[in-house]
């Protein structure tokens, strides 16, 4: 792997990181609007408001960057970066198209699943830091809720991912996809459901958005943020959607597998990611927010047992075969 190759891969990942979250954001604007009988943004950019998020970005960049008096200044200013950068790192490790050796991926990592899940967990730290450093009771409440949610949902997420790793016999993401067969789809469906749901909860997306619940605690950990730092938190949310959808697609929906996978593998990955992103938006429009205790109950009494069941099922099938 020479320097040019590395540079190209990194640029490609960075480009995807800058473009895909905005695409998801724009889709959310439009899909949510139409699901509510509206049309959404129509003016920015001329054609059906395609440049709405660009306009939003310009607006955010113009705003004053306020740090509250009592805030822990450096932690407060660092938090958005902590929230955003992990998703960029995760994107590096996601395989997009089949290729021998290194594969169609920014950087193939032997313990890919470990890396990806560990780094995704770091992203939530941004919310915790923001919540603690803001010197605001709503931020603190939001941060505490984030922490509780992280504790509850990291476990089923790990267990579900472990099931796939068991089935494939490897921790490498390209390795899992190499071992993937179509019948894994029904076999791992429970795990897929658990992984996707737990991922939603970690991203604090509705219906698991009690940590940001704007009608209860203003905007949780982000209450005191303004301007570009606030925009970075929002961007982190959408980057999170992309990463979660891509990971679910890779682990449970077969990633690049599909007709003409040799040439169109990347398209299959993107399609599956897009479909799951749509589902994320769809869920937001359809369901009301869960209460804090309901969120905990879903995790401990439904998702964890389901994940354990999936692991048992995977183990049994693996031994019998």
């Amino acid at each position, binding site marked *: 792997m020479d320097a040019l190759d590395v540079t190209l891969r990194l640029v490609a990942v960075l480009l995807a990181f800058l473009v895909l979250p905005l695409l998801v954001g724009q889709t959310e604007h439009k899909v949510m609007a*139409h699901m509510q009988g*509206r049309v959404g943004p129509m003016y920015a950019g001329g054609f059906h408001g395609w440049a709405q998020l660009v306009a939003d970005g310009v607006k955010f960049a113009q705003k004053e960057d306020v740090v509250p008096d009592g805030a822990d200044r450096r932690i407060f200013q660092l938090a958005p970066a902590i929230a955003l950068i992990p998703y960029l790192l995760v994107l590096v490790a996601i395989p997009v198209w089949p290729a021998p050796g290194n594969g169609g991926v920014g950087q193939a990592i032997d313990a890919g699943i470990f890396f990806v899940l560990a780094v995704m967990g770091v992203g939530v730290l941004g919310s915790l830091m923001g919540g603690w450093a803001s010197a605001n009771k709503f931020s603190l409440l939001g941060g505490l809720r984030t922490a509780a949610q992280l504790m509850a949902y990291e476990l089923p997420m790990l267990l579900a991912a472990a099931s796939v790793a068991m089935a494939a016999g490897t921790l490498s993401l390209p390795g899992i996809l190499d071992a993937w067969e179509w019948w894994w789809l029904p076999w791992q469906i429970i795990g897929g459901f658990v992984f996707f749901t737990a991922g939603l909860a970690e991203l604090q997306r509705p219906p698991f958005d009690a940590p940001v619940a704007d009608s209860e605690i203003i905007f949780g950990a982000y209450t005191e943020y303004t301007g570009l730092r606030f925009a970075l938190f929002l961007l982190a949310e959408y980057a999170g959607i992309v990463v979660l959808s891509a990971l679910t697609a890779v682990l449970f929906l077969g990633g690049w597998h599909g007709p003409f996978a040799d040439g169109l593998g990347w398209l299959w990955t993107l399609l599956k990611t897009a479909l799951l992103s749509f589902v994320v938006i769809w*869920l937001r429009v*359809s369901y009301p927010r869960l209460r804090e205790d309901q969120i905990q109950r879903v995790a401990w009494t439904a998702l964890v047992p389901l994940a354990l069941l999936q692991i048992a099922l995977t183990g049994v099938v693996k031994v019998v075969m």
Partner: protein
Amino acid sequence: MSRPSAVFGSGLAKGLAVTFRTMTRRSHTAHYPDAQPELPPRSRGVIGLFEENCTVCMLCARECPDWCIYIDSHKETVPPAAPGGRERSRNVLDRFAIDFALCMYCGICIEVCPFDALFWSPEFEYAETDIHELTHERDRLREWMWTVPEPPALDPAAEEPKEIAAARKTAEKAAEKAAAEAAEQAEQRGEPE
């Protein structure tokens, strides 16, 4: 609360189905600045003044709950209609203005006007950057008259409008009278034969 007979998760699926169905249908958004709204015929947009009908009776200004109608007038004497008669005096309108910054669009002025000088117009695009310009003077109020829609048609079996009924009665009477006279003349012409 889900009914006990319902399958678990059917409510969740129903929620998803509702939003998905809505997405596939046309949105309800009115594209206002791009497309003009279709307003009902009796929309209260702006008030037009038909100043030829105004007699400066001041009823509108007095009934207005917000005191947003300003009227100035003076008296003029008119020479007698018949020679040797008395001179008549007549009110002449100097200023008629409605301050739409105060107006609450109750329509009482239009209701009380006994001479049909005030009308509703559905025009509503007269926003201003200066509040003083929301006071529409006489000429501007007169201009709005051109936008007043014709009154809605009567119901199929409705009574005739009073004006038409009165006019028709007069015309019928005149026709009857003329017919009677004609008959009389014919009789007179017939007698000498």
